[in-house]
């Protein structure tokens, strides 16, 4: 048949303008399309979902019951009340490592190359990724909060302050997603992204006020711990959850989150536009 219908394979008619839409609406739409690529895949990977649920539960229970009896923190009746904000902070921070692994996976499989050859809003690839990981982290947080409540953690102040603490934690994890995205784009393999993404988070989270008071540490370590942004975050969150005044810690931790987001989204985007498999 030589009918004048276009077949499945014919190119767009010559002269047809192939203009690229620009503007905020399209930027948002491309970002959402990319975020959905990851979100719709979450329920299909039960391993990941279980890991994202079990790990926070395990942390809450381990720290609470293994160390709980042995550790006393001045000014706190129960270790649980002191500990939970630290566990929350550590777990959402660990959750950001998924960003680096996912980005490295996309890159090694050539998916980033494909996306870069499409007429889409390019930053949507990384923004979509970090936003989808934030959604996953919100889920993780809810699970953790429920378990925390079951083992005796209580909100000491207003609900508003507790909500503020939660948003601060999630903002921090979002900021670190950009650090992980940068790492994921910089390494050569998924395995490397995995170890490079996790290794520095251990000193960052343990040499801090998350699990013990920094006063019990040797002098030099205490200095590091006191200035550790993770300490600022934990202190601010702890104060807001207990209903006390977070003071400067709140502003320090906000400044860190904003600064990290800005610096690393810039670095990651720059690397993205130069990346090659």
């Amino acid at each position: 048949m030589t009918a004048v219908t276009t077949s499945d394979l014919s190119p767009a008619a010559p002269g047809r303008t192939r203009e690229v839409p620009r503007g905020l609406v399209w930027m948002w739409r491309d970002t959402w399309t990319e975020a959905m690529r990851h979100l719709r895949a979450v329920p299909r990977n039960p391993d990941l979902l279980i890991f994202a649920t079990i790990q926070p539960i395990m942390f809450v229970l381990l720290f609470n019951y293994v160390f709980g009896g042995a550790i006393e923190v001045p000014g706190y009746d129960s270790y649980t009340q002191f500990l939970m904000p630290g566990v929350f902070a550590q777990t959402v921070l660990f959750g950001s490592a998924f960003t680096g692994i996912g980005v490295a996976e996309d890159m090694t499989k050539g998916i980033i190359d494909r996306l870069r050859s499409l007429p889409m809003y390019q930053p949507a690839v990384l923004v979509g990724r970090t936003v989808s990981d934030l959604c996953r982290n919100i889920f993780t947080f809810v699970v953790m909060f429920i378990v925390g409540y079951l083992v005796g953690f209580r909100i000491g102040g207003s609900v508003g302050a507790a909500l503020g603490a939660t948003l601060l934690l999630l903002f921090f994890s979002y900021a670190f997603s950009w650090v992980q995205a940068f790492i994921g784009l910089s390494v050569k393999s998924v395995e490397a992204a995995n170890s490079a993404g996790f290794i520095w988070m251990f000193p960052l989270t343990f040499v801090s006020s998350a699990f013990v008071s920094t006063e019990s540490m040797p002098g030099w370590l205490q200095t590091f711990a006191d200035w550790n942004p993770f300490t600022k975050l934990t202190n601010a969150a702890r104060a807001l959850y207990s209903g006390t005044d977070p003071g400067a810690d709140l502003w320090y931790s906000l400044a860190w989150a904003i600064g990290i987001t800005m610096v690393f989204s810039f670095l990651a985007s720059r690397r993205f536009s130069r990346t090659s498999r």
Partner: protein
Amino acid sequence: MYAVEAEGLKKSFGETEALRGVDLAVEPATVLGLLGPNGAGKTTTVRILTTLLKPDGGRATVDGVDVIHDPRRVRARIGVTGQYAAVDERLTGFESLEHVGRLFHLPAKEAKKRAAELLERFDLTDAGSRVVKGYSGGMRRRLDIAMSLVSRPTVLFLDEPTTGLDPRSRLGMWDLIEELVAEGTTTLLTTQYLDEAERLADDIVVIDHGTVIAKGTADSLKGQIGGDRLEVSVARVDDLDRTAALLQDRCAVTGAEHVDRDARTVTIAVSDTNKIVPGVVRLLDDADIEVVDVVVRRPTLDDVFLQLTGRPAEADDDEGAER
């Protein structure tokens, strides 16, 4: 107007000069075969033309749009398939195609319709609702190609599209490319397989060490290297060098003989094929060399490639694999 045009493309990675001034031009609705050994600069050229890499020098247009200054408008006109199937294993086949359609800003309904259409065309309708993770290599490759056709591209870039495919899938890919070109799609194809280039390409550009060393149709390239080929197989590897020396004396054309130790053959260009076979057999017999086979044949693209680059096209070593 050419569908693809490049002039003096240069690109270095650190100390390595990957491209030292590549020129090429592709007529609309034709196939250009870009040939070259591993590390010659094929992939780098394709990456520049598909806006993935900025050249250090030179200029290029695709469908009349400048690659360096207007990359997004170029991206709206092209389809790209790289060396490995770039598919998200977590999505279904349908979702993968729909996702690309959405990023080309098709309305939701149209993106779905196009996805279904392509699944059908690529024999993936049944697999369309399954997650790609369970797909075979051939299915992934088909989906990958389908993804590059979602937007009905004017120019299609295929980087070694049949590497790693079984013979049947290869033939299927060739039919597909022929169909696309018949419908009016311009194709730039890189390949290491000369039979593929011979079958599909209207024009061939051979590059090596980042420069174009020959261009033309398959026939004109064969004409350029001149003369028929005499191929002698011997029984003992030790005799190869002696055989080569004797043949060179006897035929004395250009000295372009090639010794293949694995196949135990010597190939040499000859100008006068008249009675050459009995003569050669006698000559080698007198020298006490045990001959297995002697053939005279027309030159192939392999011979062209060998003569131009000094090495066979399908090198096994992955050394210097292109980035």
